[in-house]
C-alpha cells in the first residue's frame, strides 16, 4: 500500500522498522548511546570515579572487598567486574569508556562525512581543475595505508582526544568524498538538475537543494560506517600508545591490561573487548539495515 504523500525517506524508515536485525542493532546502539549521554552529563561513572582507586589491586569479579567510598570511609562491598592494577573499578572504567567511544565515533563520523560530502559535491558537480586537484589529493591520501596516516597525524598532534579525532577525520573523509563524487556525477546528468537550471536555480542551490537530499542514503551509511571505523581505530591507536591519554578508554584498557592477562587477570581485557564487540556488531547490523532501507534502488 502506497500511503499518500509519503516521502521516500519515510518509506525507508518504515522498511527499516520491519528489519528485525536492524532494529535489534538500533536498540543496542540506542542503549549504549543513552549510557554515553548519562556519563557525559555526569549522572554516573564520572571521570573522577573512573580514575580513583576504590580498593586493593586485582580484586576478582564478584569477590568481596573493602571499598573506599568518596568520603574516604571504607565499606564492605561485592565487586562487579573487579579492579585493575591500581585498584580502580573496572566496571566504572568500562562504562566511562562508552562515552569515549561515542564521542570519538560521533565527532569523527560527522566531521568526515561533512567534509567528504561538501568536497565530493564540489568535485562532482563542477568538474574541471577543482575536480582534478581534489582527486589528486584523494589519490595521494589513498595510496598510503590509512593506519600509517592515522599514526603519523595523531603523533604530530600529540597524544590525546584531539589528536585521535583529527587523525581519523583527516583520513576517513576520502572514502565519503569518492563515493559522493561518483554519485553527484551521476545525479547531475539527470533531467531534474537540468530542469532546475532551466527554472533559473543557481549552482549552489542546485547542489544543496537538488543534489544533496538525493545523497541521503550515502550520508546515512557513511555516518554509521565511519562511526564504527572510528571506534575501532581509537582502540588500535590507544593500543599502540598513540590514542587517548590520561582517561580510560577501551583501547587504553586493553593496552594497559595485556600484561595482566598473562598473569591470569583476565577481566579488564575481556570487559573492554566484549563491549567493543557488542557495540561494533550492533552498529554493523544497523548499518546493513540502513543500507537496505535507504538504497534508492531498493525503495520502490
Amino acid at each position, binding site marked *: 500500500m502506497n500511503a499518500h504523500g509519503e516521502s521516500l525517506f519515510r518509506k525507508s524508515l518504515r522498511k527499516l522498522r520491519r528489519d528485525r536485525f536492524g532494529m535489534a542493532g538500533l536498540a543496542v546502539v540506542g542503549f549504549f548511546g543513552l549510557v554515553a549521554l548519562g556519563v557525559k552529563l555526569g549522572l554516573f561513572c564520572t571521570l573522577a570515579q573512573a580514575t580513583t582507586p576504590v580498593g586493593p589491586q586485582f580484586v576478582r569479579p564478584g569477590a568481596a572487598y573493602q571499598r573506599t567510598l568518596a568520603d574516604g570511609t571504607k565499606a564492605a562491598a561485592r565487586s562487579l567486574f573487579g579492579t585493575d592494577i591500581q585498584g580502580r573499578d573496572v566496571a566504572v572504567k568500562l562504562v566511562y569508556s562508552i562515552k569515549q567511544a561515542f564521542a570519538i565515533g560521533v565527532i569523527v563520523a560527522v566531521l568526515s562525512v561533512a567534509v567528504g560530502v561538501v568536497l565530493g559535491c564540489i568535485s562532482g558537480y563542477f568538474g574541471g581543475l577543482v575536480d582534478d586537484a581534489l582527486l589528486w589529493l584523494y589519490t595521494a591520501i589513498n595510496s598510503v595505508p590509512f593506519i600509517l596516516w592515522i599514526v603519523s597525524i595523531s603523533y604530530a598532534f600529540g597524544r590525546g582526544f584531539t589528536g585521535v579525532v583529527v587523525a581519523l577525520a583527516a583520513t576517513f573523509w576520502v572514502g565519503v568524498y569518492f563515493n559522493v563524487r561518483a554519485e553527484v556525477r551521476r545525479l547531475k546528468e539527470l533531467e531534474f538538475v537540468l530542469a532546475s537550471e532551466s*527554472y*533559473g536555480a543557481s549552482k549552489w542551490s542546485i547542489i544543496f537543494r537538488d543534489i544533496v*537530499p538525493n545523497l541521503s542514503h550515502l550520508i546515512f551509511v557513511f555516518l554509521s560506517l565511519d562511526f564504527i571505523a572510528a571506534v575501532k581505530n581509537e582502540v588500535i591507536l590507544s593500543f599502540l600508545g598513540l590514542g587517548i591519554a590520561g582517561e580510560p578508554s577501551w583501547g587504553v584498557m586493553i593496552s594497559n591490561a595485556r600484561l595482566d592477562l598473562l598473569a591470569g587477570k583476565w577481566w579488564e581485557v575481556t570487559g573492554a573487548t566484549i563491549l567493543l564487540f557488542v557495540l561494533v556488531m550492533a552498529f554493523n547490523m544497523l548499518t546493513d539495515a540502513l543500507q537496505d532501507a535507504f538504497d534508492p534502488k531498493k525503495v520502490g
Partner: protein
Amino acid sequence: MGKTVLEVQNLVTEFHVEHGVARAVDGVSFHLEEGETLGLVGESGSGKSVTSLSLMRLVPSPPGRILPSSRIVLGGRDVMKLSEREMQAVRGSEVAMVFQDPMTALNPVYTVGNQLAEVLLRHEGLSREKARARAVELLEHVGIPAPAKRADSYPHQLSGGMRQRAMIAMALSCSPRILIADEPTTALDVTIQAQILELIKKLQRETGMAVIMITHDLGVVAETCDRVNVMYCGRIVEEAPIRDLFAAPKHPYTRGLIDSIPDLEASRGGVRKPLFAIPGMVPDIHHLPAGCRFAERCFKAADACRSSDPVLSDLAPGRRAACLTPLAAGERAPAAAEA
C-alpha cells in the same frame, strides 16, 4: 502574426571532444512570433535539443561552447551578452522548458507542490503560504484532480501523464513568453499524448505565449504547429508553414520524412505495402561531407550537390530550403512513389 519574441541568427554550438570539435548546431537562424507554435523537427542527433538548450544558455560547458558570433535576441535583449546571474532571472520567467521524461525531470525527494512553490519563491518573491496556494491553483489549472491533495504527492506517486502535467504547471508558473517543449509526449502513452498536447494548446491560447515544439514525430507537428523548421545534421534544411510543408515539401529530406509515415490508406484491401525508409545513415558529425550533408542519401543528388554546400534560401514568402535542386510539387523518391 504578432511581434517577434525570439530571433536567432547564425547560432553555432560546438562540443570539444577527444577527437576534435563537433558542431552540434551549425549556423541555425530562425525567429519566433508571439503566440505561434514553431516545430523543430529532426532525427535524434540533428541538433534540435542542443538548439533549445543554447537558447537558454544551458549547454554544459565544458565541453560545450556557443560561439560568440551567435546572436540570440529574446524579447529585445541579447542573451549572449547577459551575465550568468541575469540569465538565471531569464530562465523560468521568460523562457521555460518542458522535458521529455517527467520521471527524471522531477526531483524524487520533494513533493510536487514544494517543487512548484520553489520556482515561485525564486522568481515571484511570494511568501511560503502564497506560493503554496498558487502551486495548488496551477496544478488545478493543468487539470490535475484533487490538486490540494496531489500537491503533497511525491513524483513517484503520480502517473506519467500527471507528472507531465505537473511539469507543465512548473514551466507555466512564472508565465513565460516562450515555452520550449522538448519531446513532451515521447515518454507517454498514446492516449495521454493527445491530452498533453491539447493542454499545451489550451494554455497557449489563454496566455498568448509562443511555443517551440521539439519532436521527431510529424504527427505531433501536424497536430500543434503553425510553422516548422526541419533540422538535419545541425542545420535547418527547410522552413515552411505547416500546410505547405505537408502539401509540398521542398527539401528531399523533408519529403523522405513525410513518406516514412506509415500510411493506412495505402495498404487498404489487405495488401500491406512495405514501409518507406530514407536510405543510408546520418553522416558522422566528425566527418561531414564537403557538399550537401544529405547528398549521400538523396534521390535527386547531382554532382554539384556533392561539391557545394547549399545555404538556406528563400523560395517563396515564409518558405526557405537549403537545397540546390528543390522539389517540385508532388515529386517523390522513386522508391517512395512505388511504396
